[in-house]
């Protein structure tokens, strides 16, 4: 009886979903597709050249451009020229993201502007000595999902301005280096 009790107690004390190593990137892409009835595009790296001109990453502390993501670690999914209309249910989408990206991901920043349909979600999880950062950016006509591996030194810099963190990573991932 005691053994059963201990087993149940241990099972209950474990975080839900801790055993499942979920792929937050794919899950987030699917959630956007289902909620907004849109389809994503995987755009090859070379095709991304010049898509975005502004490098917010350059504005992080120190003023000079610093590489944020570890080489070869970036995954990107675009949703372009499609309509993102929450129909007044933007908080429901936020809840859906929260439920989807429960443990082992931790919500870091979430910003919502229902009128303009602008949303940013930044989630973080451990990746050995580094961190995986998942950024979901949604606007009225486009959305981006980025997953990148970031060194703790860079994450420390980005944490100083969590609001700008999602934009910095998205800009870097969607802009080819000159």
């Amino acid at each position, binding site marked *: *009886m*005691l053994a059963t*009790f201990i087993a149940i*107690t241990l099972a209950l004390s474990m975080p839900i979903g801790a055993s499942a190593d979920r792929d937050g990137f794919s899950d987030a892409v699917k959630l956007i597709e289902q909620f907004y009835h849109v389809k994503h595009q995987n755009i090859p790296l070379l095709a991304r050249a010049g898509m975005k001109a502004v490098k917010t990453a350059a504005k992080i502390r120190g003023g000079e451009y610093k590489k944020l993501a570890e080489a070869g670690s970036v995954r990107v999914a675009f949703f372009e020229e499609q309509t993102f209309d929450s129909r*007044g*249910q*933007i*908080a429901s989408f*936020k*809840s859906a993201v929260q439920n989807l990206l429960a443990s082992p991901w*931790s*919500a*870091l*920043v*979430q*910003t*919502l*502007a*229902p*009128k303009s349909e602008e949303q940013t979600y930044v989630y*973080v999880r*451990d990746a050995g000595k580094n*961190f995986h950062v998942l950024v979901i950016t949604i606007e009225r006509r486009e959305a981006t999902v980025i997953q990148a591996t970031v060194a*703790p*030194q860079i*994450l*420390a810099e980005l*944490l*100083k*301005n*969590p*609001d700008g963190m999602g934009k910095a990573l998205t800009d870097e991932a969607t802009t080819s280096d000159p």
Partner: protein
Amino acid sequence: MRILFRNILKFAPALLFVVTAHVVTTGQTAKLQLDQLDVLANRASETVDVKLDEHLMQMTAKFFSGKDTDDAEIRDLLKNLKGIYVKSFTFEKENEYSPAEVDSVISQLRGGGWSKIVGVTSKKNGDNVDVYLLTIADQIAGLAVVSAEPKEFTVVNIVGPINLEKLSELEGSFGVPLLNLPPPKPKTAK
């Protein structure tokens, strides 16, 4: 002895539950429950929700180099904190959030070691900013700022040892907004 052991086993689950519940509740008193405010996101023109938990802060705090004075101060500050939580809602019109929603936060700050240390009320602008400090066994264990303006409602909850002076160091970074609090009283010279 055997009967005593049997009785202990019989009550072990209840005992374990009580002990666990006590540990959980006492460990989380400084962290406010703010999820009930999420419904405001549908009414707000802009919502910002920042959560920096202890694990994340401990993992990154050591990477603030001690060469820069600001960084060294931030590192020392962060390494003792257990969390920074910010929820801020901006509205297009006045009265889009209710006193009940403000009270859902304030009610957690009544008693239980929390005391209001700053209260700023502006009749002209309708702004109300209150700062609360949680003290447990003479140690500061947390801080909460509740800012209720006609078109903006912000709650900042910092878990861990922090005071007004240190809070001002965090303003404008780590998701903590500029709070425009009155400057802390200067320390008297010894």
